[in-house]
C-alpha cells in the first residue's frame, strides 16, 4: 500500500519530470506556443508564492506585491537599456532593487496588520505606480521600456541566450525551482516555524520571546525577493518593462492565484496560477470574453473548495488514508473516544 506522503512525493517527481521535458514534449504533443505559456505560469507563480509567503505563513495579506515585481522588472530593464549592463548584473540589480524597496516600505507596513496592512501595501504600490507613470524619461510610463537582451552565458565564442526558446524555458524553470526549493527549506526551518507561530497567534508568539516586528519585516523582505525575481524573469522573458504591471490589479490577481491554489501550502500558488493562466489561454483562443469564464472559475473555486485546490486534494488524501485503517482498529478508536 502507498501512503499519502508517498503519493505526494511521486506526484512532485512526476511534475518535475514533466516540467523538465516541456521544451521537447510540448512542441511534439501540442505546439511550441504552449512552452512559453508554461514559462509564463512558472514566472507568475513566483509572484503568487510571494503573496503566499506573507499570507499563508505569516498571516499578512499584501495587496501590493506588484510594486516589488515592478522594481525587479525595471531594475533589469534600466540596467540593460540605460546602463548597458550584461545579463547577470542586470538580474542582480532587479533583485536588489526589489528587496531594498521591500525593506524600505516594510519598515512602515509591517507595523500594521490585517485590513490596515492590506490597505497600506496598496497605497504604497499606488504611489510608485503613479510615480512610474509620470516619470516617463525613466520608465516609459504605460508604453514601457523595450530592450535587447544580452547573452546569459558566453564562454569564448559559445553563447547561450534567451533567443533559444529551450534555453529560455530551462533557465526560467531552474530559477523558479530554486526559489521553490528555498521556500521549502525556509518553511521547514526554525525561521519558518516562527512565521507560523506569528500567523497562528501574534500575542503568544511575542510572549515566547519572538520579535514579531523583525520577523514580519524579514518575511516582507523575502516576499519582496520572490516578487523581484519574478519581475526580473518577466522582464527577460518579455524583453520589456512597463508601469502597467505595477498597478494593484496585478497584485490582486496574485492574491487570487495564491488563495485558489491553497494559501499556506508550498505548491498551492503554482497550481492556482496554472489554473488561471491555462483557462485564460484556452478560452481566449475561442472566445473574446474569456474574463467571464475566469471570473466564474474564481467564484466556483471558493464556493466549492474554500481551502483552495490543495485543501481539496489534502482532504481527499486524508479520506483515502482513513479508509485504509483496519476495521477493528477503527472500532477500538471509536470506543476510546
Amino acid at each position: 500500500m502507498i501512503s499519502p506522503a508517498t503519493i505526494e512525493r511521486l506526484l512532485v517527481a512526476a511534475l518535475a519530470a514533466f516540467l523538465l521535458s516541456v521544451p521537447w514534449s510540448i512542441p511534439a504533443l501540442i505546439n511550441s506556443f504552449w512552452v512559453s505559456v508554461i514559462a509564463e505560469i512558472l514566472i507568475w507563480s513566483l509572484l503568487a508564492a510571494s503573496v503566499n509567503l506573507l499570507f499563508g505563513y505569516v498571516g499578512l495579506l499584501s495587496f501590493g506585491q506588484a510594486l516589488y515585481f515592478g522594481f525587479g522588472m525595471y531594475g533589469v530593464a534600466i540596467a540593460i537599456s540605460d546602463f548597458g549592463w550584461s545579463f547577470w548584473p542586470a538580474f542582480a540589480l532587479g533583485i536588489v532593487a526589489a528587496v531594498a524597496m521591500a525593506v524600505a516600505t516594510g519598515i512602515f507596513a509591517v507595523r500594521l496588520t490585517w485590513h490596515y496592512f492590506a490597505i497600506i501595501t496598496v497605497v504604497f504600490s499606488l504611489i510608485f505606480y503613479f510615480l512610474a507613470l509620470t516619470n516617463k524619461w525613466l520608465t516609459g510610463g504605460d508604453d514601457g521600456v523595450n530592450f535587447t537582451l544580452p547573452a546569459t552565458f558566453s564562454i569564448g565564442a559559445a553563447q547561450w541566450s534567451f533567443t533559444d526558446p529551450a534555453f529560455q524555458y530551462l533557465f526560467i524553470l531552474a530559477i523558479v525551482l530554486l526559489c521553490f526549493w528555498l521556500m521549502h527549506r525556509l518553511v521547514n526551518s526554525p525561521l519558518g516555524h516562527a512565521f507560523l507561530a506569528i500567523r497562528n497567534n501574534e500575542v503568544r508568539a511575542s510572549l515566547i520571546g519572538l520579535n514579531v516586528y523583525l520577523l514580519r519585516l524579514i518575511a516582507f523582505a523575502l516576499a519582496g525577493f520572490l516578487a523581484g525575481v519574478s519581475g526580473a524573469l518577466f522582464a527577460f522573458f518579455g524583453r520589456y518593462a512597463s508601469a502597467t504591471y505595477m498597478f494593484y490589479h496585478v497584485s490582486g490577481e496574485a492574491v487570487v492565484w495564491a488563495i485558489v491554489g491553497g494559501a499556506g501550502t508550498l505548491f498551492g500558488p503554482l497550481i492556482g496560477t496554472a489554473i488561471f493562466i491555462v483557462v485564460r489561454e484556452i478560452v481566449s483562443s475561442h472566445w473574446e470574453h474569456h474574463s467571464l469564464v475566469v471570473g466564474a472559475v474564481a467564484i466556483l473555486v471558493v464556493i466549492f473548495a474554500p481551502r483552495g485546490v490543495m485543501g481539496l486534494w489534502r482532504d481527499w488524501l486524508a479520506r483515502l488514508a482513513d479508509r485504509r485503517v483496519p476495521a477493528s482498529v477503527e472500532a477500538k478508536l471509536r470506543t476510546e473516544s
Partner: protein
Amino acid sequence: MDKLLLLGMNGLIWGLIIALIALGLAVIFGLLDIINLAHGDFFMVGTVLAWATLQWTGNFWLGFLIAPLIGLLLGALIQRVVIQPIQNVAALSIVATFGLSLMLQESVRITFGPTPRRILPPIQGTIPLFGIEYELYRIFAALVAITALAAFFLFLHRTRLGTWMRAVRHDRDTAIAMGIPAHRVYLLTFAIGFALAALGGVVAAPITTVDFRGGVDILPFCFMAVIIGGLGNLPGTAAAAILLSFLEGIIQSVADPTVARIASLVLMSAVLLLRPQGLFKGFTR
C-alpha cells in the same frame, strides 16, 4: 484663486459622491466582513444604467429610480449566489468578489461596448458662485448626494431595518437570539451597498465618463475612505471621503492631477501609520 476655488469645489462635490459609494462599501465591510473588490464595478454599473435609461427612455431623471432599484435586486441576487456560500470569510471574499468584478466588467463590455461614452449634464448652464461661474449640474449632484447621505443615516437610526442592521453588526449572536433574522439582514445589507454605489454612479455619470473600467480607479479611493474614517465608523467614512477628495482638489490647483493623487496617497499612508484607528476616533459615540 479662481482655479483654487473651482478645483476645491469640484473636489468637495466629487467627495460627496464618493462618500455615498464608500458608505455602501463600509456597510458591506463592517457588517458582513466582506472585502468587496467588486464595489467599484457596482458604481460603474450605476453609470451604465444611467446611460441605458437615457438611451431607452430619453429621460435622465428616471435613472435615479431605476439604477438603485436594479442595484438592490442585483445586490440581493449576488449575495444569495456568491456571498452567502462563503460564509463571510474575508480571505475568500477577496477571491469571490475579484471574480465578480471580472464578470461585471466583461458583461458590461459585451453589452455596452468597450468605448467610453459621455452623458451631457441634464441641467445645462452655470451660476455665479463666489465670483466664478460654476456648473449647475454639479451643485445639483451635491444636493442629491447630501440628501441620499441624510436619508441613509435616517434609515439606519430611525427605522426597524436600520436598527436590525446595527444590532447584527454590534453582536450577531445576541441579535439572532433576540429574534432578528440575521440572514435577511445580510441580504439587505449587501443589496443596500450595491444600491448606494449604483446611485453614486447615476449622480456621477454626467460628470465623469461611462466606461466598463470606470470602477477601477474608484475602488482604492473608497477603501481608503473606509479605513481612514475608521473601520465601522460610518459618519467617519463619509467625512474621510469628502476630506480626501477636497484636499486632492486643492492640491490639483497647484500641481497636475497625478501629482495630486500621489500627494493624497502619501498623506493617507501618514494617517494609516500615525492613527490606524481612523482619523475621527473619539469624535463619535
